[in-house]
């Protein structure tokens, strides 16, 4: 492998990216906007308003419940009305004049545990979870005040310390890994495809350059941009720079200020390893594409499954048994896990789980590089 040629390739790739403004924007601005947006949504998201309708079918014992429930619900900021029957109450929920119906059954107050029905609209399952939760919370407090038994207070801790109340802490590492992987893949794929379709690859293959030198040059070129990109994202995600209020603009802070338990440099290494693999993946997949649009069309096939199966959104352990093995062959799984190890657990190099992640990521990067270089000499149509 000639150092000169690899470096010449690296310089050329870097020059091309530098002059490609939209790609630079994609690399550097998009991840910042998106992580910022996700953080904002998770942190500042509204708890949905609860507008309860109580249907009392239990006469007098029900009235006691109704007034106790009303007090409990209103204490939590909900509005409460009553309806004479379930049909009326349901039509209110259907019309969006109420969000949840609580039906007190006829047998309430007699022996045995009563069954209380809670009805929601059914159009937004995740949002309605909080409606049901609000109703049960009020019902538990009513039951305890009527029976005189105080329910226990539950405190949640984790082995790595008290869980952060910041909802983004668990999500941020996954996002960082995903962006580095995703953008590097798209840019390499498109840029290598241009090499194939623009006739320059044919020309390049007519020089004494080796396939390894080409993959090496590309990996260095995109690797450098990935390193800058990841450094930027990490600074943005972990940092907090306060900007004092100017006139009517209130004080705000730049940077998401997400807390990291471990060494950010270690997290950096994890992401860079993943990005190196993405370069080769881009080169490899460009073999199967004829146009730049087709590189984009691989996203639902190659990138989205990784997003779904690598623990970015759903923990790997909660995946159906059938799909779990798939998550083990996806590089992004190890990047996401590695980052969580560092961010949340505060893992250092002595932690086996992190060692495994780093090792597997290195393995993937090497494997993809070999596969990518194999595909390069394929006849260009």
């Amino acid at each position: 492998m000639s150092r000169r040629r690899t470096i010449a390739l690296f310089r050329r790739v870097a020059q091309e990216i530098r002059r490609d403004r939209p790609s630079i924007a994609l690399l550097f601005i998009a991840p910042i906007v998106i992580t910022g947006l996700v953080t904002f949504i998770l942190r500042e998201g509204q708890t949905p308003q609860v507008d309860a309708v109580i249907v009392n079918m239990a006469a007098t014992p029900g009235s006691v419940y109704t007034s106790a429930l009303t007090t409990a619900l209103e204490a939590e900021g909900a509005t409460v009305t009553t309806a004479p029957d379930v049909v009326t109450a349901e039509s209110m929920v259907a019309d969006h004049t109420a969000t949840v119906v609580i039906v007190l059954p006829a047998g309430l107050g007699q022996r045995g545990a009563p069954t209380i029905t809670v009805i929601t609209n059914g159009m937004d399952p995740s949002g309605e979870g909080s409606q049901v939760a609000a109703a049960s919370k009020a019902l538990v407090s009513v039951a305890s005040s009527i029976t005189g038994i105080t329910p226990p207070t539950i405190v949640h801790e984790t082995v790595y310390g008290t869980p952060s109340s910041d909802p983004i802490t668990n999500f941020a590492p996954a996002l960082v890994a995903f962006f580095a992987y995703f953008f590097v893949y798209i840019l390499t794929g498109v840029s290598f495809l241009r090499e194939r379709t623009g006739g320059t690859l044919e020309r390049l293959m007519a020089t004494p350059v080796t396939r390894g030198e080409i993959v090496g040059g590309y990996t260095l070129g995109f690797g450098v941009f990935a390193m800058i990109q990841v450094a930027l994202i990490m600074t943005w995600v972990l940092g907090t720079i306060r900007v004092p209020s100017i006139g009517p603009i209130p004080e705000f802070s730049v940077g998401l200020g997400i807390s990291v338990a471990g060494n950010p440099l270690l997290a950096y290494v994890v992401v860079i390893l993943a990005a190196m693999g993405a370069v080769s993946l881009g080169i490899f997949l460009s073999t199967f594409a004829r146009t730049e649009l087709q590189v984009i069309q691989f996203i639902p096939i190659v990138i989205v499954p990784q997003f779904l199966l690598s623990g970015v959104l759903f923990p790997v352990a909660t995946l159906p048994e059938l799909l779990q093995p798939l998550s083990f062959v996806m590089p992004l799984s190890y990047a996401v896990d590695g980052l969580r190890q560092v961010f949340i657990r505060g893992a250092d190099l002595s932690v086996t789980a992190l060692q495994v992640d780093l090792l597997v990521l290195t393995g993937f990067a090497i494997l993809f590089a070999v596969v990518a270089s194999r595909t390069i000499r394929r006849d260009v149509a």
Partner: protein
Amino acid sequence: MPTDAMSPGGGAPAIRAVGLAKRFGLIRAVDDVTFDLVSGRIYGLLGPNGSGKTTLIRLLAGLTHATAGHAEVLGATMPSRTTLERIGYMTQSDGVYPALSVEENARFFASMYGVSADGAVEESLALVELADRRRSLTGTLSGGQRRRLSLACAVIHRPPVLFLDEPTVGVDPLLRVQFWSYFRSLADGGATIVVSSHVMDEADRCDELLFVRAGKIIARGSSRELRDRAGTTDLEQAFLRFAGDAEAAR
């Protein structure tokens, strides 16, 4: 066919095709081609669109696998990576990087061939009269200017074997004359040059022509010889005559 043409140095042929064939599915792009080409001469591959000129050049340069037969360049069986150092290939498409400047393109290909001297880059750019456009982005050049840059990148390492796939397409007449006199000077210096073209009036500048039709070499000789053999003064007529003979011989 005169495959016994004398090389000035008298040694082995610079380029050799032995039963060379390439099929794409049912298409026989190159069909059992055998020839020897000696150094110091300019050979013209002449044939209509799709006759297999580009594929033949790609086979000779070792850029695609032959279905049958093999090619040798400077004594090495292709593909041979080390031999590529001594081959220049100007592709039919420009094959230069639009986002790089003229000079950056030239420097890049120079490094690929392991040429480090700045002189080589300067000389090549001067040759194609692009020295004053060195800082322009290649994407902003005119079609003919890009063609010229493409030539500069193909000869930057002064290769003894040069494949030129339709080098003068889009190049103005004045510069075309300069290109050909440059090719001639390279040949006089001992280089073997294979030029593909379907412009018949350029054919007279080649030492020898190879008529290509449907993947086969249907005739070989100097422009004068071929016209004489066909009994016509027009090369195009000669081509058609040989094509007709080849058809009849099937």
